[in-house]
């Protein structure tokens, strides 16, 4: 069982707390002049995404969580799981809906995603920051309107719905920021 001493605490370190993997966001050393030292730590639970605070006695050791972030290529979904592959080792992984979260809205086959693995199993999947997707359905806009003001909903090939300017038509490819879920621009033709 790998452990970390509080003196090893730093942002990004992965700990196992109450059975859940957590990542350290902030670590503050607290010590009264004549008293015991503590580490007040802000952590994110990697399974639930919740942020929590915890106080440790300085010098204490805490169990490490076997967590790593890997760039994996998205292969396909089978209705229950989303399958990914490590392009170097060809090792395959399957993520459930819980781990996928919002990423299902944005990713297409062959997209590279940041996947968080805990004991070798995906627990979180992050879509690329920007994706290019085709519009499968949107109301025809008014001809000649290039202002982009107002906008209208458009359904993308992945099923996600984003607001696009009125001049964007069905069949066009657009660039979307997956963090905000907003339209960025028309995709340039390669």
């Amino acid at each position: 069982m790998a452990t970390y001493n509080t003196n090893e605490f730093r942002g990004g370190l992965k700990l196992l707390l109450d059975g859940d993997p957590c990542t350290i966001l902030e670590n503050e050393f607290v010590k009264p002049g004549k008293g015991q030292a503590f580490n007040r730590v802000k952590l994110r639970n990697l399974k639930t995404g919740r942020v929590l605070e915890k106080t440790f006695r300085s010098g204490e050791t805490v169990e490490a969580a076997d967590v790593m972030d890997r760039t994996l290529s998205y292969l396909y979904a089978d209705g229950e799981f989303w399958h990914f592959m490590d392009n170097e080792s060809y090792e395959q992984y399957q993520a459930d809906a819980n781990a996928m979260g919002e990423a299902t809205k944005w990713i297409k086959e062959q997209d590279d995603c940041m996947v968080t693995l805990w004991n070798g199993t995906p627990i979180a999947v992050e879509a690329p920051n920007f994706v290019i997707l085709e519009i499968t359905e949107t109301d025809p806009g008014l001809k000649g309107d290039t202002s982009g003001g107002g906008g209208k909903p458009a359904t993308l090939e992945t099923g996600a719905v984003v607001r696009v300017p009125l001049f964007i038509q069905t069949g066009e490819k657009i660039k979307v920021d997956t963090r905000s879920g907003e339209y960025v621009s028309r995709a340039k033709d390669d």
Partner: protein
Amino acid sequence: MRRHALDWRPGAGIGVLRARAEMLGRLRGFFAERRVLEVETPLLSSCFGTEPSIEPLQSEFVGPGYASGRRLYLQSSPEFFMKRLLADGSGPIYQVCKAFRNGEAGRLHNPEFSILEWYRPDFAADQLMQELAELVQLLLGQDDLPVEFRPYAQLFEEVLGLDVFSAQAEQLRACACERNLLGAEQLQLDRDGWLNLLMSTLIEAELGRDGLCFVTDYPASQASLARINAYDTRTAKRFELYYRGVELANGFEELVDATEQAERFEHENCTRRGRGQQPMPVDEALLGALEAGLPACSGVALGLDRLLMCALELDDIDQVLAFSLARI
């Protein structure tokens, strides 16, 4: 170009260095006017305080007389040497020096830091607190900063509804859990450990929000080198100064009894052994000075780096040090 792992630049800009120099100038003027003598004592000593929560940085002298080396500790305070001067009849003295503590680094901590420490023969704790308040007002450039005094027990009663004299460890743990101090249910601490945790996580941040706040009459179990209060032996003549939630100074009406001092050293070394820490070599020279007669006096140590942080409204000690731990 060569690549360097360390940033060569200082953490404190020239403006901060000037403010520090000015602060030192003003404090020397303050003591000169009051005829308190500036002294220098060694930063290295073969002895070290026994307090279980203060760990030393060590060094070793090899040279004439010490072919196989002599262990020397970088001092966490010039207290023992200054008390030997007082016992020798120095009268009121002060010192500005570096102090060292192992294991401490963070937003408010650097293992090497600057302190101002001074001793006033014939001053009671109240008088020294008054003088400290005047000095801090001067150094912060705010003569009219309000000053309040809050006894430790009263503070715990008001903020947490706890009686610090009767509350046992389990009750203190329950209080921490009730206030959502996560992790409290798993911590193993003794009574004073819990009091320290509650103080630093639930009370401290609000202290001295609008002025200088002295916390006075610490529990006797946290007396350190302070005299026990004659009128209430549950408390000691120890005080701390807080400003804007930051602990700035710690002072005592000094323990002058050699026998009691020797007992406290022994007791603390016992605690150290119990916790798996190295016991510290007891300073026999200090005990000798106390036997010869330390005049009744009060003394206080003020953290100058933190005071400078407060004066300049900076929130990381790295910003007021030329080169903090991360830069050396």
